[in-house]
């Protein structure tokens, strides 16, 4: 069996456990047990839980963006593209909530180096996606924008901030699907107003 294949199997098994039990409640032992491999072999591929977690996040992001890309290719209207982006984003946040929520257990001070790098990388990628949609709208002369980059950042900041404040006001152990749907609706409404403000007459 090739190395890459084994690594992939480990990531798949980890995603399954992380998504259900959360990262904090999953042990390396359990993941090794699921795959009937020795703990030693598991540690050969991933020396600690954080490196496995980083690989899992990367993997989730990869499949998410591949899927989103496929859908976006078929759409020309930048406003609708933004909706597609928001919908896919919500779908994956629901599916992998427990995996992503683990990030909340870190503060800026104790965030491991590899996760910090990954996080910056993923944030960059998400920003790039928003930027490219806005850029498309600019080229089509739908949006009247001078600084695409800055606009994308403003939009992205809203997405981050809104979710945080939503859960601060509606705390819950397991956020329900309905809550995420409610967030998505607000995000879409915001998106429409935001871009309407940027639209040419």
């Amino acid at each position, binding site marked *: 069996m090739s190395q890459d294949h084994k690594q992939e199997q480990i990531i798949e098994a980890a995603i*399954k*456990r992380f*998504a*259900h*039990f959360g990262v904090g*409640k999953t042990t390396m032992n*359990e993941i090794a047990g*699921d795959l009937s491999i020795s703990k030693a072999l598991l540690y050969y591929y991933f020396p600690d839980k954080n490196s496995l977690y980083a690989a899992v996040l990367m993997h989730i992001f990869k499949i998410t963006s591949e899927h989103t890309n496929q859908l976006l290719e078929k759409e020309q209207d930048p406003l609708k593209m933004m909706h597609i982006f928001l919908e896919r984003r919500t779908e994956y946040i629901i599916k992998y909530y427990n995996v992503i929520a683990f990030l909340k257990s870190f503060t800026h001070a104790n965030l491991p180096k590899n996760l910090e790098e990954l996080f910056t990388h993923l944030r960059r990628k998400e920003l790039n996606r928003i930027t490219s949609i806005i850029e498309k709208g600019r080229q089509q002369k739908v949006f009247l924008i001078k600084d695409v980059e800055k606009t994308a950042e403003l939009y992205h900041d809203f997405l981050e901030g809104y979710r945080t404040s939503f859960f601060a006001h509606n705390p819950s*152990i*397991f956020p329900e699907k309905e809550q995420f749907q409610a967030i998505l609706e607000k995000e879409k409404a915001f998106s429409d107003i935001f871009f309407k403000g940027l639209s040419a007459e």
Partner: protein
Amino acid sequence: MKVIVKQEQILDAAIKRLSHFGVNKTTLTEIAEDLHMTKQALMYYYHDKQQLIASVTAKISGEYIETLSGLLDKALPAKEVFLSLIDMRRLFFSKYHLLFIQLSTTDLIKAAEIEQIRNETKMAEAGLLAKVIDQAMRKGTIRSANALDTVTLILETITSLAICLGKQCPPPDQAEIDNLVNKQKALVELLFNGLKAG
């Protein structure tokens, strides 16, 4: 009165966590936090995890037997009762997930109190179902034998199919459960064919 309300709240919160995370991965502190209370306050109502789990077991087993008894009130033919029982178990499984698996297998929770509730539930379930089989035997649709033995045999065969799935962790996906339920139903059909009088 207030105590009972609080206890119910704690039980519901505990069930929510236990169903998802299972017995080993749930702490009293987490349950207390869900209810915005301290662990100490929670321990005023339930002295330890074992006591809480015993109450949870009693609550769910009560619900199980009540649901079963409601099913029997419909006075369905014996085979239909067992087919419905499979659906009912599936419903409990999806509602309580890991908790349902862990409460029905002995190796995880060894406390005497919980063991006793589990045995009582099994006895009550078998007793209720034996009545159904007994009636079918009197009517002559099923070959005469010891009703309770027949029920035990059917239940054990259904359960044995579920064992391989039950050990899987995290809980199996819907397709796997569908697959199991279909097998269990096919088995019940087969058994009842074999039990036919004549």
